[in-house]
């Protein structure tokens, strides 16, 4: 399942404390709280890293996982139905996706299922997909049962969590879970075939501070 990186070890790079960069797309109906979820993840915990706060459509955040620093590059997509056909352009080359629905709205869960189906059919075969039932703080208005979503996720091999951007519940956890599941080239995960598009780009690092990973692609 995990794919090995196509970048071999550098003669002048150290093997310790590597940084992996992954592209993650956010899919889901508009107003399910996609961007709130990411904003909570980007700003809530690691407040020292302030991406230009002007827009919440493109953001980066790093998490540390054992000896690896995982840098997420989060691409938000427009959730309105009319832009649905444009989605493939966004998830082209993405290594991870979070499909978000609103637990207080059954329709959004239906659309989330549609996204999952499309991703599994059209995106990179090794893409890591997570399903997030957002707005879990609105339990009194719940329309989508936890078990229903859990069963669906298990059937389709998805990571699943109910999150709340408002209370920050499970927000960091879902990103960490994705980071764990992502193949890190040369990492502890077993080496597989070189499914190049699903492998994180390895960045040679200068030092170990998480914020330093943001130096490329300005």
């Amino acid at each position: 399942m995990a794919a090995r990186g196509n970048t071999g070890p550098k003669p002048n790079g150290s093997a310790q404390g590597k940084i992996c960069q992954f592209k993650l797309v956010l899919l889901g109906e508009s107003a399910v709280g996609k961007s709130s979820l990411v904003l909570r993840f980007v700003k809530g915990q690691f407040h020292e890293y302030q991406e230009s706060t002007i827009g919440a459509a493109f953001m980066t955040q790093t998490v540390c996982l054992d000896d690896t620093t995982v840098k997420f590059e989060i691409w938000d997509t427009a959730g309105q139905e009319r832009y649905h056909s444009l989605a493939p352009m966004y998830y082209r080359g993405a290594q991870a996706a979070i499909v978000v629905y609103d637990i207080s709205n059954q329709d959004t869960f239906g659309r989330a299922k549609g996204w999952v189906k499309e991703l599994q059919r059209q995106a990179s075969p090794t893409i890591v997909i997570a399903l997030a039932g957002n707005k879990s703080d609105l339990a009194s208005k719940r329309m989508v049962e936890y078990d229903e979503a859990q069963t669906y996720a298990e059937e389709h091999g998805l990571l699943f969590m109910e999150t709340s951007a408002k209370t920050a519940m499970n927000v960091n956890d879902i990103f960490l879970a994705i980071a764990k599941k992502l193949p890190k080239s040369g990492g502890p995960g077993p080496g597989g075939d070189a499914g190049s598009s699903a492998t994180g780009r390895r960045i040679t690092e200068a030092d170990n501070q998480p914020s330093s990973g943001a130096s490329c692609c300005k």
Partner: protein
Amino acid sequence: MEPESGKKSRGIKVQSDLFCKSGCGFYGNSNWQGYCSKCWKDRLQQPSKSENVSRSPKSSPFARHRQSSPSGSFWAVFSRFEEKRSQQHEKRTRTMKSLFKKSHQSPSRDFSSVPFLEEMLDGVTGSSASSENTPSSDAFTEYLKTLSKPIAIDVLRHINSVTQKMQKMCEAGASPEELSDTAKEFYQSLNDRLRNHPTFGEATSEQLESMMDFTEKNVMTRLYKSVFFALSAQNEDKDLEIQKRIRSLNWISAAHLDCFIDELRPDIMALIDKAIFSAIEMDARRAPQDKLSCIVKCSKNIFEILRVSRERFGNVEAASADEFLPALIFIVLRANPPRLHSNINYIDKFCNPGRLLSGEAGYYFTNLCCAVEFIEKMNHESLNLTKDEFDRFMSGEALPPGVVFGANLDSLEAPWLCEGVRIMRGNLVTLNELASRDTKLEIGLDDLITDGATFVDGVEKMVDDVMAGTPLTSQPHKRPIALDDAAEATENLPPPLTPQILK
């Protein structure tokens, strides 16, 4: 009577003396018997021609006349005048020439300070160095100077070889796809080389990144004309098509796209203009990353528009893609950027591929591609209109509601205003403001002049007062005191001690 007539005749004489005797209208000169310089020359030439035609028809008339003319002294004066004139003329042209020469030489002097680069840079600046290329070449030279010698030579060698190769391909009529493959292969091989070759072992990853950037920029800037020409020839139909399409969609307002931009607020209008400017600027840039940075700039402006628009509703959270994409579509519709397809294609084909699939610029570029695709495929469903309504709006038969004719004509915010009229009105407001500032400036200037005059008067008065209060009195000269001569100074002193002999 006598003196009067004398005066009159003298006056006439003076009058007729001033002009050339031949009546050409120029002033004459008594040195040349009352002719102007030109007529005098002609007059001198005429008799000599008949005289000397057989002997030396081509020899200078001046030289001939110096010998043959009876009025030798006149001639001498005239020839001196001519000589002086031609000398002055020569001097002027010489200075102009030297000026040009100097300005030409100055840039090359920069290169000579880096002798090892000189030869290779000749290739860079020489092959396609039209004057418009020089800024990037100069920046590149500056950049190369920061690298160590072996690295700079290696990078330059690669740049020169790929540029020449692609230039030849262009001349041979290679398709943009073939060119794109060559460019991408080059990026890949250079990247591998930078990461693995021992020459670059000491360079940090940041240096390697910037080396890649500079290489890409330099190569593509040099090849831009030929490559972009091939691309735009291929995409011409598509370019025109989308341009026409966007024109026919001019009735779409922000509300149709579900984006909450209050396009009638002056501050937002200014921001929209900025975003539109960046979108149009893309066509003027050459290197793919420069074009990309225009897109990023445009996108940042759009976020600013959204932020300002949302503040009104008390929404302070940053805008997400749900709002951004519609706003981008709206801006593209308003801007109608020139050669849109060619530019997108160019970035897609000749940019370092890593730049497009990840990174901020890649994200915004993807959004732009999406916006273009959406515009191309837009139909009544995507705007939540009935088919009938959509067709009528497209044909210009009807205008969507909200577009009211005869609204407040003088208001800048009149919603019916087309782009040109709106800009014109904006300009008129600016002009009025400028006029009022001009008036203010004039008033201020008058004040300043008065102030200046009063100040001078005041100072004069003060000086006068001080002068009057303290009349000039000359003090007696101070004489140096000669201590030895000062007899009177020693007068009051006790007599000096005299030595006494003690027994």
